[in-house]
């Protein structure tokens, strides 16, 4: 008998270029912040702009995360997502108007409690509406992108008009709760309190989403469903049910984002969600459809870039996002972190 042939398996080292390639999207945010610093030159204004850019990015991410997951899981593109932002904003603001004692008191816990209640109410309402929305509007058009786009655009209009019927067509102005007005000064830079809160909330949501998606069984099913839905169904999981859950949760997140955005802009209109959808689509596209991490990085890039450009050259602010999208699609046509489809 002869010996088995010499055999020593080795792990091929991943080359530096490939590792950089994979990490590149994560590096874009610090690179952009650094570029912003060099372009602006004044540390205090740079810090102010960076914080407001991060705050804006976090809020966009909250609104975009649901959309990207829904697409990844069920291949459904929901143009009506913007309506949930508006509904959430109107509901949340109604609750805030309802609790003048809590919002005008000079106590941070009471203020935060009022906002939390507003967010809770907004999420409950948008969740409920989206459940009906999924049943009535989306369910009959599974599998046909063309019809999905048409139907959800129609539904977006109907929902917006219903907001006008319920809350009136005028824009509603509001002021932030007492303790969240004004700014604190840090290293000569004026940092608005509310923006810091927005960054904190955004980070919490991102962490929670990551935790659910990476560490729980539901998250495992959702991630597996995004990669290969048929296989997950073959293993006996009712993906439709999971999908409805994701749809409702994603829409509730849009409602949350709506409340945050309403307090950020301090004015709400029925068309605000439709306006946000443009930024959200840009974020979802450059992040890679279906990717939560991609949407997070994309949202931060969009928020930071918009704030820097608005400071340096105000007229180019919205066009800057289109330019960013063009550049990223030239680099990676599928978006920064496309989801690997297993089928």
């Amino acid at each position: 008998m002869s010996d088995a042939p010499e055999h020593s398996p080795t792990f091929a080292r991943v080359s530096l270029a490939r590792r950089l390639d994979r990490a590149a999207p994560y590096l874009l945010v610090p690179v952009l912040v650094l570029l912003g610093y060099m372009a602006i030159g004044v540390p205090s204004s740079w810090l102010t702009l960076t914080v407001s850019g991060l705050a804006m990015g976090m809020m966009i991410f909250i609104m975009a995360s649901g959309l990207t997951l829904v697409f990844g899981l069920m291949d459904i593109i929901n143009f009506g997502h913007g309506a949930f932002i508006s509904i959430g904003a109107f509901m949340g603001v109604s609750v805030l108007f309802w609790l003048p004692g809590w919002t005008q008191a000079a106590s941070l816990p009471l203020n935060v409690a009022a906002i939390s209640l507003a967010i809770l109410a907004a999420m409950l309402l948008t969740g409920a509406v989206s459940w009906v929305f999924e049943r009535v509007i989306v369910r009959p058009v599974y599998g046909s992108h063309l019809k999905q786009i048409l139907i959800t655009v129609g539904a977006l209009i109907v929902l917006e008009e219903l907001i006008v019927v319920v809350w009136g067509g005028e824009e509603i102005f509001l002021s932030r709760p007492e303790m969240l007005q004004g700014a604190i000064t840090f290293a000569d830079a004026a940092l608005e309190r509310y923006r810091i809160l927005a960054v904190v909330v955004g980070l919490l949501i991102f962490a929670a989403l990551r935790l659910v998606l990476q560490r729980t069984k539901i998250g495992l099913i959702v991630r597996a469903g995004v990669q290969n839905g048929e296989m997950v169904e073959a293993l006996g999981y009712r993906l439709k049910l999971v999908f409805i859950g994701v749809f409702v949760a994603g829409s509730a997140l849009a409602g949350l984002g709506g409340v945050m955005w309403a307090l950020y802009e301090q004015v709400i209109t029925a068309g605000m969600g439709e306006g946000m959808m443009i930024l959200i689509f840009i974020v979802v596209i450059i992040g890679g459809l279906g990717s939560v991490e991609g949407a997070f990085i994309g949202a931060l890039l969009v928020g930071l870039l918009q704030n820097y450009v608005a400071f340096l050259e105000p007229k180019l602010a919205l066009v800057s996002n289109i330019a960013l999208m063009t550049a990223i699609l030239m680099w990676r046509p599928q978006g920064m972190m496309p989801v690997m489809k297993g089928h």
Partner: protein
Amino acid sequence: MIDWLISGDRPRSVALGAVLLGILFSLAFAPFLFPGVRALDTAATILIFIVLVASYDLLLGYSGIVSFAHTMFFGLGAYGVALASIHMGPGWDALIVGALAGALSATVLAYAIGLFSLRVRAIFFAMITLAVASAVAVLVSQLFQLTGGEDGLTYRIPRALTPANRVGELFGVRINGRILAYYLLFFSCTALFLLLLRIVNSPFGRVLQSIRENDFRSEAIGYRVVAYRTAATCLSAAMAALAGSLYAIWLRYVGPDTTLSFEIMIDVLLMVVIGGMGTMYGAVIGATIFVLAQNYLQNLMGAASDATSALPLIPDLINPDRWLLWLGVLFVLSVYFFPTGIVGRLRAGR
């Protein structure tokens, strides 16, 4: 002869043919049949929207691509004529240069957008066109030195096309430059519509339809799907720009609300769906019904709202300002229940 004009694409239904002939007849003799400024205005709007909707149908109905930038191309054509008329002075040369410049820039822009989005997934196209169109709308309102911002631009067109140019009388109707302008529109729109009909009934149009049905298979047979989709986008953008130029000639005014707004985009979508996707004749019927309803039905809604003012909620719901609500409902219902639109219904009921 007629068969050659309509590229062999017959209505294939007696009722449909009768309706189309009725619309053609009414539009051809509108100044004589329906005297009055408002009626003429409505007829001209119908003509322009027929071309705009038909060019959109080339994209949505024949190629299966959803675009939200169609009003942007429409606006490009309109602003082209407006800017040329202002900077070159009123004249025929300004109109021609403006229309060509508008169509050319629309084609180039459509090519650029198509290159980025259609290359990967057709679904990107809907989102990217929405983003680009809104960016352009913002740009137009911000670059007010050039575009007049929210106020828009007014300008003069050749005197031969204005009401001041009195020509004479025919069948008891005073012929002035306005009526000549109407006929300029009528013949241009008819020509553009017939050209679109020619395009969709050519081998090129067949390939577009095959891509709509099954893009993977078309690619496998050997057609370059991306090239065909991009070509359809460019063609439809150029047509929309030409329709915009005609609109600018008719209105002698351009502004974001009349040419660029998202509401017009919704109107166009609705006209395509109501008339029937994937049939050029659907554009004719959809545009006619919709523009008539928009101009006359809103008054009716106002009257109904006043009549029910004692009831709760109902007057709010049928207030003319809620016009868009009912449009949305109608839109959703027609996508569900009449995916083939009026034309499909008429053809099926033959």
